[in-house]
């Protein structure tokens, strides 16, 4: 099975988010970048499928040279090779077109990625890539099994899950508990240095959206503390002050 895993290069989940004073750009000073947690789940499942059934796992990122350590991490975790599409990603439509262009040439059986990136939370790329390639897409996928050319997928729905059967090729936007995150071991890290990482120039420039301004939510007021033996006061505050009951 030939598997592509699209990974995002995003701020660590503990990052305190801030922007440049004019609100035009993300303030990346001192920020640690990671493989998107949802993409990390997708990568882990891809490697499990390869280990069980043979084939290959390629990790792909649309981004400039600064994202290469993140791709190397994917190689250390177990991807066989990596592709970086050398362009600054500014919207989902641009990223999806770039990914679709690679997929058209490579004919993957499975194209996995996270359900969404944790920076812009767009969640658009899986569906767009599926549509551009004329193949089905499913998200958010919590379980993925493949037998022959048939995938059995468990997809989250409100308050539960739905089991779906679909023939490959398939695009899946993944989330837990599809697989456990894999932590690279020393051998993986050493091996990753020499695994192929191909840089591809972009094919399209079209975007359909532009960010005009970033902002932070208003600061939260102080927490009002209530004595442990006085829950009646809490009920009163919820009813008459917060007016949520």
């Amino acid at each position, binding site marked *: 099975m030939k598997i592509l895993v699209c990974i995002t290069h995003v701020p660590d989940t503990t990052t305190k988010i801030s922007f440049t004073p004019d609100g035009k750009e993300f303030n990346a000073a001192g920020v640690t970048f990671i493989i998107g*947690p949802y993409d990390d789940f997708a990568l882990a499942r891809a490697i499990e499928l390869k280990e069980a059934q043979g084939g290959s796992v390629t990790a792909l990122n649309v981004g400039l040279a600064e994202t290469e350590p993140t791709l190397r991490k994917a190689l250390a975790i177990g991807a066989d090779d990596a592709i970086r599409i050398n362009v600054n990603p500014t919207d989902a439509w641009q990223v999806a077109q770039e990914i679709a262009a690679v997929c058209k040439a490579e004919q993957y059986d499975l194209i996995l990625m996270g359900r969404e990136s944790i920076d812009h939370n767009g969640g658009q790329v899986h569906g767009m890539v599926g549509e551009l390639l004329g193949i089905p897409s499913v998200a958010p996928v919590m379980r993925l099994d493949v037998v022959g050319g048939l995938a059995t997928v468990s997809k989250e729905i409100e308050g539960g899950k739905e089991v779906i059967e679909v023939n490959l090729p398939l695009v899946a936007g993944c989330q837990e508990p599809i697989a456990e995150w894999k932590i690279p071991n020393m051998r993986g890290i050493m091996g990753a240095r020499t695994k192929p990482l191909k840089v591809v120039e972009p094919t399209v420039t079209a975007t359909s959206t532009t960010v005009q301004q970033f902002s932070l939510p208003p600061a939260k007021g102080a927490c009002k503390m209530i004595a442990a033996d006085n829950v009646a006061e809490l009920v009163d505050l919820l009813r008459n002050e917060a007016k949520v009951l």
Partner: protein
Amino acid sequence: MNILVFLESDGSVKKSSLEALAYAHKTAEALGGGAITAVIAGPTTTDLGSLGGYGVQKVLHADDGAFVQVDIMTSAAVLKQAIAISNPDLVVLAKSSLVDAMAPRVAAATGAALATNVVDLPVLNNGVLTVKRSIYTGKAFSDVALNATLRILTVKKGAATGFEPNSATTIVESLSVSLSGSDKALTSKGTEKATGEILLPEADLVVSGGRGLKGPENWGLITDLAKTLGAATACSKPVSDLDWRPHHEHVGQTGIKVSPSLYIAAGISGAIQHVAGISSSKCIVAINSDPEAPIFKVADYGIVGDVFKILPALNQALK
């Protein structure tokens, strides 16, 4: 601005879909009028004519024999068809697991500019439609310009508030959609759904438990309080990782994002990844035995104490 609204039904038209209609109505009002059309796929018990109360001029209903299953692929086909017929400037959908997966396909097929996670009404600046989106998992916002003549928005709960439908009625037309082979690529093998519970993503009140509850055998404390309040139940990630509770109750960075009026966090430390999923709650109550727990930094009301004592007392006080 002509607007098309995609509706979902889970028996009757979903509450979130009615909010999408309210959003469309308010948008049309703010941007100088325009026709509102609604489209829905599959059976529903709702009297669709009554949606006229939301200012809808026409409802397109795709529900003929061809429609065996409403899924990502078939509903994308329905929406594409409805766009072709009604030629809107703007398409509005309420965020849901179906819509999140389907809207991007429709955008790619139609060349529309898509904004997901929209939290407020759009504004029109020199002909360019701009929307506010929630990003960094609730930690920030972005104002995004949509540079196409067709725009698609998926809107979050609470994006349009304070709208009451009137008693007007509207016409309902049957929409016939011919599904291609690839539209029928997905075969549903069945769903597993918690029955009789309030759905977490749409809930107005949420009672949530963390590792401080010590084990699944103690969850009665959470469910009893939820029952008294008519609230949905939720949990932190370790709780679902440990299988104390089902995964679909897990709230946070990698789980469900909620935006209720009231979120009660019991025995939850308030890790940044948990808070990411609850930060758009109107009011947060924290119950934790550790006065230094970070949850108190984001809570509106806090009690330092033992969940095993506070939860039953709170339940009693509410009865």
